């Protein structure tokens, strides 16, 4: 079944919602997570967007790429919507953290990959100079301070035709720093996904969202900011850091604004339980909350239960859980559960699951992520034979629908492989190969793991290649190319493990293994902002590789789990020191 979205493009949606909803507030911004500092109405966004579009039109042509770098949500929205009206392809990116780190590397990679003509940012003192000092070539695109564009400029805007198959924006959440991959999101795909979200969550003009999700992340942008515009309700936004600093601010704002639609990756809910002590829960009343979505990370039954237990007495209804499955390659949402059904669960025998078999009635609990709705098609496919897996077997999740993205920016071969898959037997397709593993049971999709080598920490994707490149050069006693990073589900979260090989003992006399491990942790933390849960130092040749010398991450992880990795010994000199 397919439905026609409310509008064919983001540009026309902006226009029609501005005239239909006028002075109704669309976005409120709490700059410190508490006090409302700015409001944008529906007609206000359209006006601001025209002003920004007029400025963009001065120097950019339709189809040019503009990277958006803004921590301030209102400025981000102005910049993004300006691009939509000017026909400029928006490229949201994470503003680099203070200090040198991977995020400058990521930004460099994105700017180069999409050949950005402009970087649209806020004029806050830290941004341009600091970034250009670390990455001189980033001075080449034009830097446009969006917060310096006066609304009066709207009069200069020249109407630009935007078609449904034009590109709305590029989503760079896939791909490592060395090979960034920009998912190409057309207006048509975007509008179909918004229709899917609005239908699944039964969104309407009386809803209110409160969100701290970053807007450069698809869940914040496509899952919160756009649904507000699409369904015509108001979204209250706060900076991610003000939530992480004190999670109570999120629930306080939900209480204050009577919010109905709010979500987070699993870690956000876990953070609320861990960091809001019982005496600070007393003022909270979240009974208005009817869509509590969870996605971007595995949805853990333990987290849902702990949250519902902690905040049930303060109005949280466990039937509000909306576990979701989605990925940038299908715009955002792939599947969603039925409203008011809560989080479907299934217990399984984990021993069978490890062999790819679905055997209900065991000790492992999985949370269902819903099923196809509207236009969505889901197939579970054997990734090797490309035939449908039976009901009792785990397979790769393949998706189809008008919101499957057009491919990766300027990567035709990889796009064909990922977005153009066909079933072996019927030739049916094209399908998106998600790289995620799962099965369907009782009309629910359950995610069990992934084929692709990514680590998801704090709701964000990290690529093992990037972490390995950092970790492998943290200490001279390490073998740079013999380093493997992977993630493991332990203690109800994704833990990061680094396995690294060392020089032969006689070449590392006097070197302390603790010191190496410490430096690995420090380098990964400084460069990628995540902590390594375990560093395993091994001898040369104990890292599994293919005959052509390629790292085998899966085999390494399996050896780690079985306790079969041969750990390196401290060299004799250090042992003597340790014995002193």
């Amino acid at each position, binding site marked *: 079944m397919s439905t026609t979205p409310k509008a064919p493009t983001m540009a026309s949606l902006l226009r029609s919602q501005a005239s239909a909803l006028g002075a109704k507030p669309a976005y409120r911004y709490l700059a410190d997570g508490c006090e409302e500092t700015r409001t944008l109405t529906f007609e206000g966004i359209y006006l601001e967007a025209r002003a920004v579009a007029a400025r963009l039109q001065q120097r950019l042509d339709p189809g040019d790429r503009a990277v958006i770098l803004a921590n301030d949500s209102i400025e981000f929205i102005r910049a993004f919507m300006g691009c939509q009206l000017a026909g400029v392809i928006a490229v949201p990116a994470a503003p680099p953290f203070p*200090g040198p780190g991977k995020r400058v590397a990521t930004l460099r990679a994105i700017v180069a990959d999409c050949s950005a003509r402009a970087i649209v940012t806020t004029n806050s003192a830290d941004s341009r100079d600091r970034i250009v000092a670390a990455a001189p070539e980033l001075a080449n695109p034009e830097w446009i301070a969006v917060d310096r564009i006066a609304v009066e400029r709207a009069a200069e805007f020249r109407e630009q035709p935007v078609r449904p198959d034009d590109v709305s924006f590029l989503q760079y959440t896939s791909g490592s720093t060395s090979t960034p991959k920009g998912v190409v999101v057309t207006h048509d795909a975007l509008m179909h996904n918004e229709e899917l979200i609005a239908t699944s969550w039964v969104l309407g003009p009386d809803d209110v969202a409160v969100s701290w999700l970053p807007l450069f992340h698809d869940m914040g942008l496509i899952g919160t900011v756009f649904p507000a515009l699409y369904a015509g309700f108001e979204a209250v936004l706060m900076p991610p850091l*003000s939530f992480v*600093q004190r999670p109570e601010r999120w629930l306080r704002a939900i209480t204050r604004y009577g919010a109905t639609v709010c979500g987070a990756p699993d870690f956000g809910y876990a953070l609320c339980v861990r960091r809001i002590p019982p005496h600070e829960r007393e003022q909270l009343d979240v009974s208005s909350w009817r869509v509590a979505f969870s996605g971007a990370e595995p949805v853990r039954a333990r987290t849902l239960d702990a949250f519902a237990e902690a905040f049930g007495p303060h109005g949280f209804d466990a039937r509000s859980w909306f576990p979701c499955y989605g990925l940038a390659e299908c715009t955002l949402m792939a599947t969603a559960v039925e409203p008011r059904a809560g989080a479907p669960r299934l217990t399984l025998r984990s021993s069978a699951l490890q062999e790819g078999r679905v055997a209900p009635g065991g000790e492992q609990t999985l949370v269902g992520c819903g099923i196809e709705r509207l236009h969505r098609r889901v197939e579970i496919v054997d990734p090797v034979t490309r035939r449908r897996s039976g009901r009792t077997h785990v397979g790769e999740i393949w998706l189809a629908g008008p919101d499957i993205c057009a491919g990766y920016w300027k990567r035709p071969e990889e796009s064909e492989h990922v977005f153009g898959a066909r079933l072996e037997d019927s030739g049916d397709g094209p399908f998106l190969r998600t790289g995620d593993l799962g099965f369907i049971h009782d009309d629910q999709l359950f995610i069990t793991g992934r084929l692709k080598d990514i680590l998801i920490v704090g709701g964000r994707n990290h690529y093992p290649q990037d972490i390995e490149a950092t970790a492998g050069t943290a200490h001279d006693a390490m073998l740079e190319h013999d380093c493997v990073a992977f993630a493991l589900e332990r203690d109800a979260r994704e833990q990061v493990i680094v396995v690294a090989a060392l020089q032969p003992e006689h070449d590392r006399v006097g070197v302390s293994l603790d010191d190496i491990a410490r430096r690995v*942790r420090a380098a990964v933390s*400084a460069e990628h902002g*995540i902590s390594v849960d375990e560093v395993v130092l091994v001898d040369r040749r104990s890292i599994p590789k293919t005959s052509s010398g390629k790292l085998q991450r899966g085999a390494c992880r399996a050896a780690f789990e079985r306790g079969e990795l041969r750990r390196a010994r401290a060299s004799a000199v250090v042992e003597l020191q340790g014995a002193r």
Partner: protein
Amino acid sequence: MRERDQIADWLVERVAETLAIDIALVRSDIAFSDLGLSSMQAVELSDDLQRFTSLMLPPTLVFDYPTIDGAAGFVAQELARAGGSLPVPGQSRR
């Protein structure tokens, strides 16, 4: 300055606890990230400091002042400006 040292000592203990490492390994003159703290843990630390000092502190505190010495210096200054005081260890305030 007494407050500065007290805040620094408190930070050393807190970081050691967060990373589950020995206090002796927590140097106060190197960056929090070099100690192995993730950005999320660093932001949480700013809230722990808020609770400890009863001050409003920016979530980016430990990025703006990336070492224990630096952060303690800044927070002690803020404390003096606000005319606040630190809880006396092991005792309740008078």
